[in-house]
């Protein structure tokens, strides 16, 4: 629970990937080298590491600082103890993600690759089983995907899944808000402040523009690749959740038709960055890709395979290969669904929510502090008079 002191916190962080957290001797080099830290009053990385070393779990959970780091790796390369502060920041984000999740599944998945992979296989087999048991008639002389898997049924499944996953994700977001703003403060802050800051959430969700400030090396390329990935992901989400009836069709439209163009864009925007990130992690090219936990690999591989099988469905459908289309469709969903079920609320995917939310909450805190100062000022001048 928030509010507890945990003398084993540093061991916990190690299990989440921050293996060198004990090496730190708190010299503060990382904090001054960090291009993002000054905005938050020099709150990280050293102070986050200090919280971990001293077991102040409640303070760590109440901190937004881990989310302000975009992992340029400058701190790690300049650390005199080679204590890898950047990876400790990453591990504390994993830890917080696990703490925001009230089911403790995230904790299980982050700490055990076997558990995460088992869960993915289990959900995958469940989806395959559903299709084996309940699929529609297989028309074999031409491709009729909507006969094999009626779009309204798939859509229903989509929405049920979206509702369940949103519930878990929003529960996590609520816990994050609760802990970081503080129980009392939450109701003291004017609702207008909460409303006025909402654009901040969406700006950062769609642009990730803070990345530009990060790092002594120009990170524009990495920012662009990530932006491409997000745009591909959000495109695909729109296509399969809101526009599924238009997207999953047996009509083969001409190539330039928006339905196909948008789909192709989303596919490329998913495939290229995930492949690039996988290669970079494999070759340890960039500072951010030097250290990879199982959760990092699983997320990227699942995302890559989802996009790959998705485009193969399209290829077989357009190529008029009915049986191949049906089989790859089942495989596609047996990868996509577990990817979403496991990653969205319980693993790395959730940062699409927590990242912009943290910036939003930091904005709310700042605005509330400014408002409080304004209230105090007139009183102070009165007192002086």
């Amino acid at each position: 629970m928030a509010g507890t002191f945990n003398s084993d916190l540093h061991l916990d962080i190690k299990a989440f990937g921050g293996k060198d957290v004990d090496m730190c001797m708190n010299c503060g080099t990382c904090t001054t080298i960090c291009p993002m830290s000054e905005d938050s009053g020099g709150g990280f990385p050293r102070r986050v590491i200090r919280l971990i070393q001293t077991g102040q779990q409640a303070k760590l959970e109440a901190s937004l600082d881990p989310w302000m780091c975009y992992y340029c790796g400058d701190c790690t390369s300049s650390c005199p103890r080679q204590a890898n502060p950047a990876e400790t920041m990453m591990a504390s984000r994993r830890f917080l993600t696990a703490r925001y999740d009230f089911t403790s599944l995230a904790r299980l998945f982050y700490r055990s690759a076997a558990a995460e992979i088992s869960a993915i296989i289990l959900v995958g087999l469940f989806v395959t089983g559903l299709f084996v048991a309940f699929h529609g008639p297989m028309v074999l002389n031409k491709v009729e995907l909507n006969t094999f898997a009626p779009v309204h049924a798939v859509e229903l499944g989509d929405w049920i899944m979206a509702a369940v996953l949103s519930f878990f994700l929003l529960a996590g977001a609520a816990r994050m808000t609760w802990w970081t703003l503080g129980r009392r403060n939450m109701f003291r802050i004017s609702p207008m402040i909460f409303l006025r800051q909402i654009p901040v959430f969406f700006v950062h969700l769609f642009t990730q523009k803070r990345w530009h400030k990060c790092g002594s090396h120009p990170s524009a390329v990495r920012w662009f690749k990530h932006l491409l990935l997000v745009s591909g992901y959000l495109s695909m989400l729109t296509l399969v959740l809101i526009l599924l009836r238009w997207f999953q069709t047996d009509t083969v439209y001409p190539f330039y038709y928006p339905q196909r163009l948008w789909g192709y864009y989303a596919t490329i925007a998913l495939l290229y960055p995930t492949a690039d990130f996988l290669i970079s992690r494999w070759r340890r090219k960039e500072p951010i890709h030097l250290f990879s936990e199982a959760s990092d690999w699983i997320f990227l591989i699942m995302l890559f395979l989802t996009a790959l099988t998705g485009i193969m469905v399209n290829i077989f459908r357009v190529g008029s290969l009915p049986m191949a289309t049906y089989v790859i469709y089942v495989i596609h969903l047996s990868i996509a669904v577990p990817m979403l079920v496991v990653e969205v609320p319980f693993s790395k995917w959730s940062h699409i929510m927590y990242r912009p939310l943290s910036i939003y909450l930091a904005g709310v805190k700042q605005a509330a502090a400014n408002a409080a100062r304004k209230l105090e000022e007139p009183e102070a001048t009165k007192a002086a008079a």
Partner: protein
Amino acid sequence: MIASANNERRKNTVVIGGGIAGLQAALDLADQGYKVAVVERQASIGGRMISLSKVYPTLDCASCITTPKMSAAAHHENIELLTYTEVDSISPGPHGHTVVVTRKPTYVNAEKCIGCRLCEYACDTEHPDDFEQDLGSVRAISVAFTNAIPQKAVLDADYCLACGLCLRACPTDAIEFDQQPRQETIHADTVIVASGFQLNALTIKPQYGADKNQNVISPLTLERLLAPHGPYGRVLRPSDGKIPDSIAFVQCAGSRDETIGVPYCSRVCCMYAIKQAMLLSGSLPTADITIYYMDIRAFGKGYEQFYQNAKAMGINFVRGKVSKIDSADKDDLLVHVELTEEAQDCVRKQRHDLVVLAQGMIPQWNPTASSPVHIGRDGFVATPDAGSPCSTNVPGIFVAGTAGGPKDIVDSIAEAGAAAMEAGRYLSMRGASSDSPRTVALELMA
């Protein structure tokens, strides 16, 4: 080169390095009657210590401790000083160690030179003075420094134009342009390695900007600025000669840092920074002096009190490792630091006139190429036997002072005594008579 009778010596001990540790070891052995040769690569003995201003924690004058030892060594009947001499190799044999040295040409006949410095005054070629950390200049032919021993002129061939002015000025015809390097062999029963330390480069961490701003200086430079007989006789900053009003000491700027391969503590920086801060507040009473540190390691006798005195004197101690130093303008500096003991607003860019980087101590000499002596992972001479802290891996070769690891003057002197004691014990066990420089074994060999 064929070894002739002139080129061979027999000694009980060869001490490599004529700094404070080497001199102490040499004196301790010579006083017991052993014959000692001190090999020094510089033109004068005295080592690093003779260039320092004062020593902690007593604030005694460094020359006042070093010079008597230098001259005692120079005048000791059992000590032979081989200055301006490099060690080529040390090879142990069954009958002792053979040390081959190269005596670099000074182009001045040491027998004839009387140290009158007329050559120096006559010479009109100048170059930055090593001894003054390049703050002053020195002539191409000169006596190494004021209180150098021996007081003999040395001609630096890198700068000499061979114009002949010194030749004409010399009253004793001591100048010999035709001198050549001369290899010599010393047969010795024991060797004491006291080759000392150097500081790692001021620019080793490029983020400290020493290559961009002259006012980021070495602590040895500050020693010269503070020394009463220093280049300016007062504290001025290098870039524009301004009297600095705000001085920062950046600790651990070259040690305890894995990124530059010096993970160990250099041990002396905390204390000399405090000492220099105290001396500065004496010579510049209105200046602000800040020491940025990670921990103050005041480990020795009287050191903690010294540290507390410095605090009481108003020297500002700030906990936090400096990550970066920018130039605020052409001369002033901005020190980036996290004030790790402040609750809020802790990332600062502090403006200073002068910044002193506590460079790391690294070994001056690597013996592995020319001798069987092992070094440890830190590069310093390895001392594998904890019960005999001055013994190297080779029987009969001992180590003293900072050649074996970072240490301060007090510890270097104590260790030099210990090394001399161990060498003396080794000599007596081998049956070396202190009155005769030759052991029985050497007799057999000869």
